[in-house]
C-alpha cells in the first residue's frame, strides 16, 4: 500500500522561490516577521541594504539587527564587536548594528584614504628628488670654446673671458713647439687631396689592376707617406 505523500506547503514553496531570487527582492512590506526570519538570513550585505532601503514605512530591525551583528563580526572581527558591546554597556547606550557597521566602514575608509594620500605624497617627493638629479634636455647652447676653423689662428682668443687664460694662450701660441705643430698641420692639410688619390688604390682589395698601377706609377709621393 502506497503511503500518502504530503504535498509541500504553499508557504514553503514560496519561501524557497524567494530565497532563490533574493537578489531581485526589493520591498518586503507586509511580510510577516516569521517569513522574513526565513528569507533575510540568505542575503548578503548589498542585498540586505537594498531590501531595507526599499521597504519604506516598516522597521525591519527586529529581524535584521542580528544579521547586521553577524556582518560586523565577519567584516571586523568578533573581538572588535565584543569591544563595541562593552563600550555600549559602559555608556548605557544601545545602537543598532547596522549603524555600528556603517560607522566602522566609514572609519576604515577614512583611514585608508589618509594612508593612500601619504603614500602618494611620499612617492611624488621621491620622484621629484630623482628628477632633480637627472640630466635634462635644454635649448640653451653653451658658448663654444674652440673657434670655427679648428684651433689655428687668433679667433679663438676672443672666447677666453679670463685675462689670465688669454695671456697664457698667447704665450703658448708664440712658443716654438706651437709654431712647428701648426706648420706641419698646414702642410698636411694642403697635400691631403693628392694623398687620398694615390693611397686610395691600395685600400681597395677588389681591384688588383689599381694596386699594381699604384706600385709602379710615378704619381706616388714618398714624402707624404710618413
Amino acid at each position, binding site marked *: 500500500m502506497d503511503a*500518502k505523500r504530503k504535498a509541500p506547503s504553499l*508557504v514553503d514553496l*514560496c519561501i524557497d*522561490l*524567494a530565497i532563490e531570487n533574493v537578489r531581485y527582492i526589493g520591498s518586503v512590506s507586509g*511580510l510577516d516577521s516569521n*517569513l522574513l526570519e526565513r528569507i533575510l538570513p540568505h542575503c548578503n550585505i548589498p542585498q540586505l541594504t537594498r531590501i531595507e532601503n526599499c521597504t519604506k514605512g516598516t522597521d525591519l530591525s527586529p529581524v535584521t539587527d542580528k544579521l547586521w551583528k553577524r556582518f560586523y563580526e565577519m567584516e571586523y572581527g568578533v573581538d572588535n564587536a565584543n569591544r563595541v558591546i562593552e563600550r555600549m554597556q559602559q555608556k548605557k547606550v544601545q545602537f543598532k548594528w547596522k549603524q555600528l557597521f556603517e560607522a566602522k566602514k566609514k572609519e576604515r575608509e577614512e583611514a585608508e584614504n589618509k594612508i593612500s594620500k601619504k603614500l602618494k605624497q611620499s612617492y611624488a617627493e621621491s620622484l621629484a628628488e630623482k628628477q632633480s638629479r637627472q640630466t635634462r634636455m635644454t635649448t640653451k647652447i653653451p658658448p663654444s670654446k674652440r673657434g670655427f676653423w679648428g684651433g689655428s689662428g687668433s679667433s679663438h682668443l676672443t672666447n677666453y673671458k679670463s685675462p689670465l687664460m688669454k695671456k697664457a694662450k698667447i704665450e703658448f701660441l708664440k712658443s716654438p713647439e706651437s709654431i712647428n705643430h701648426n706648420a706641419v698641420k698646414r702642410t698636411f692639410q694642403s697635400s691631403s687631396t693628392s694623398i687620398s688619390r694615390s693611397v686610395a688604390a691600395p685600400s681597395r682589395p677588389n681591384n688588383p689592376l689599381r694596386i699594381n698601377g699604384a706600385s709602379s706609377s710615378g704619381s706616388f709621393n714618398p714624402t707624404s707617406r710618413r
Partner: protein
Amino acid sequence: MTPQETVKLVSADGLEFVVPRNAAMISKTIQGMLSSPVTQQEELHFPEIRGVILKKVCEYFSWALRYSRGEESEFPIEPEIALELMMAAYFLDT
C-alpha cells in the same frame, strides 16, 4: 459535484472560484471558517487577496490533492507573484 461538495472563494476584486470542498480544506484557515457555525453560506470572501493570487491558490489546492494521490510534479510559481502569494498562503495557513 453537488453544491455541498464545493465551496466558493471570492477575491478582493470580485473574482469567484468554485472549488471542491476537500481541496479548499487543505487550507487550515478555510477549514476553520467552514467549520465555524457563523458561516452559513458556502461562500468565503477574502478582501485582502487579489483574484490572480486566489486563482493560484486554487491551482495549488488541486496540485496538492494530485500530489498526495501519488502524482508528484513540480508546482510552477511566477517569481513576480511569489511574495504576494507567500502572504496569502501564510494567511490561509496552506
